[in-house]
């Protein structure tokens, strides 16, 4: 069954405000796809367009190749898990799960069978007759999943469903969601502002900012090869150093970073001499010992934090820019203390130069 979702040149406007810039995006059948972005970036609007609560101003949403224009929310092959779950508090757990089937005129015995099967899937076999208020946060979460799956949707939409859970439960539910996705084989579209969730669960992630998709890629590419300054600083931790491009040499460019000297990094896209650009280096890519072909910058240590398996340093450059550095604990020495100078080296292929000023 084709359960792909295609945002076909979709635009969403509310009055003068454009919530979603023109977007063309195809989400493959059976994919675990995430939209990642800060709040207000338009990701919930996308979910509302796919589920039918909003009609795009321009363009179309296609599910399984079928245009959804004019198809109301209750006739679409999608199912949504709401941020606050929106379970029906006046119904029992079973009634909640069976609601979608009841609507479709499925017989009582068939409904019972389906709800038992789903309760088993989410490992809550004995909870059918319970009231929603009697469930814990994690149990409610799983009932919401069961209710959404009961209608056998082609596409499951998840609107930050884990944000209300505590850390441990959240990590557990990530594994569980991924397992359910594998078991059912349907398309999952996941909305989150939590990059950890997006990176661990997704096949592909779309990073969004201000109504625009910045980059669509698998999690590793997104981390290693960000296309825009926003993605570089939003996904994972990053240090951005701005400067002016003074030399472009095939894949690598040299930046004049003022008091930090000349720094070299891998070019992202087409860059030319004279442009303002930002060099991004991840905290874990800094070394204390320079090796051949490495580049270095000088800084002064502000703070040393011991985190167990690793150390984090906060340092200040002569340009008064804060850097964050992550080192293996074995590299700890007494020389690493507040106020001490430190020489930070990196390999040029680990640094990435993106045009424009640092975003954050």
């Amino acid at each position: 069954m084709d359960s792909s979702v295609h945002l076909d040149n979709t635009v969403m406007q509310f009055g003068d405000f454009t919530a979603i810039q023109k977007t063309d995006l195809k989400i493959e059948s059976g994919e675990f796809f995430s939209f990642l972005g800060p709040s207000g970036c338009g990701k919930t609007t996308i979910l509302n367009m796919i589920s039918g609560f909003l009609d795009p101003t321009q363009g179309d949403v296609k599910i399984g190749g079928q245009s959804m224009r004019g198809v109301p929310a209750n006739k679409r092959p999608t199912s949504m898990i709401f941020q606050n779950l929106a379970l029906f508090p006046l119904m029992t757990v079973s009634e909640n799960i069976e609601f979608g089937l009841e609507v479709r005129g499925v017989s009582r015995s068939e409904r019972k069978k389906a709800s038992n099967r789903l309760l088993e899937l989410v490992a809550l076999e004995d909870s059918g007759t319970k009231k929603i208020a009697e469930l814990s946060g994690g149990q409610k979460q799983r009932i919401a999943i069961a209710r959404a799956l009961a209608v056998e949707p082609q596409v499951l939409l998840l609107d930050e469903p884990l944000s209300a859970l505590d850390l441990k439960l959240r990590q557990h539910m990530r594994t569980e969601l991924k397992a359910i996705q594998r078991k059912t084989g349907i398309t999952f579209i996941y909305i989150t502002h939590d990059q950890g969730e997006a990176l661990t669960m997704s096949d592909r992630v779309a990073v969004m900012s201000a109504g625009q998709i910045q980059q669509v890629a698998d999690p590793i590419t997104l981390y290693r090869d960000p296309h825009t300054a926003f993605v570089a600083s939003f996904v994972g931790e990053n240090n951005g150093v701005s400067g002016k491009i003074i030399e472009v040499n095939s894949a690598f460019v040299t930046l004049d970073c003022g008091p930090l000297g000349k720094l070299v990094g891998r070019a992202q896209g087409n860059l030319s001499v004279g442009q303002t650009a930002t060099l991004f280096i991840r905290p874990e890519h800094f070394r204390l010992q320079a090796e051949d072909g490495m580049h270095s910058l000088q800084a002064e240590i502000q703070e040393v934090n011991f985190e167990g398996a690793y150390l984090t340093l906060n340092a200040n450059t002569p340009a008064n820019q804060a850097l964050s550095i992550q080192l293996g604990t074995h590299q700890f020495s007494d020389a690493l203390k507040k106020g001490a100078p430190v020489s930070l080296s990196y390999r040029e292929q680990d640094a990435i130069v993106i045009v424009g000023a640092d975003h954050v």
Partner: protein
Amino acid sequence: MFSQLKARFGSGLAVGIIGMIAIWLIGLVILPQLLMVDYSFRPNLLPADIGGPKDVYSLTNYETLFNNLIHLKIFFKTIWSSVLVTSLTLIVSYPIAFYLAKVATPQKAALCLLLLIIPFWINEILRTFSWYIILAYKGPLNALLLGLGLIDRPIRFLSGDGGVLIGMVYAYILFMIFPIYNAIESLDTNQIKAARNLGAGWIRTHWRVVIPHAKPGIATGCIMTFMLAAGSYAVPALLGSPGSRWFTQIIYNWFFEGGDWNQGAAYAFLLLIICIGFIALVMRIFKVGLGDIAK
């Protein structure tokens, strides 16, 4: 209660407040009611006979109703018509309340509420009388319907119960809209979206999700409307025809035309008791508790 008031205002003021509430409750509510209870069990006598050998307690006044078929018929017609008024008001008010609570933008909702409230700044008699004009045989409504070609000749809205029903639905609509509006407003909009998302059409979404949530508000609105309708005097007096007398009019007649306060008091209590009993029964059937309504 006293210690709370004392802590807040000092004992002097606390005694004053409690005293005033007590005077108000006892003097203006409890005593007159008790006096009416007393009246209702005693015969209607000439002033000279009051306190004399004929002045004994009996159920005679209460029995009068059950021996007077016309009064009994009007009594049950009043209850039945009040049920009808309540149902009609509910049917009219629910969509308005839902629109105000969940569909309209805040500005539109405020405007609609204002438009609903403004007519109620006008005296009830005047408001009711304006319906008399609207519904008159040669009035604007008939003129409009004739003009549109929907009817061939004017309708006598004001003969029979039609005028009374319309007038009462209009008079009590706010008492229905506001409790339902409050109840629906407290419903999480995602619940409605979830029902839609799971495939429910509008009717089922309301039936299974919105109405169960709004039940206490609906109950409050229905009780208020029912009690007001059953106890209404102005609307049936103005818009009613001779054939559509309300029981309150008979009570009025006993008091002010028959001069028999004792009989009037007994009738009034019968109406009150039956209304309370009826409401208790309906609340039981729809499984609404007193606690739900007090919310």
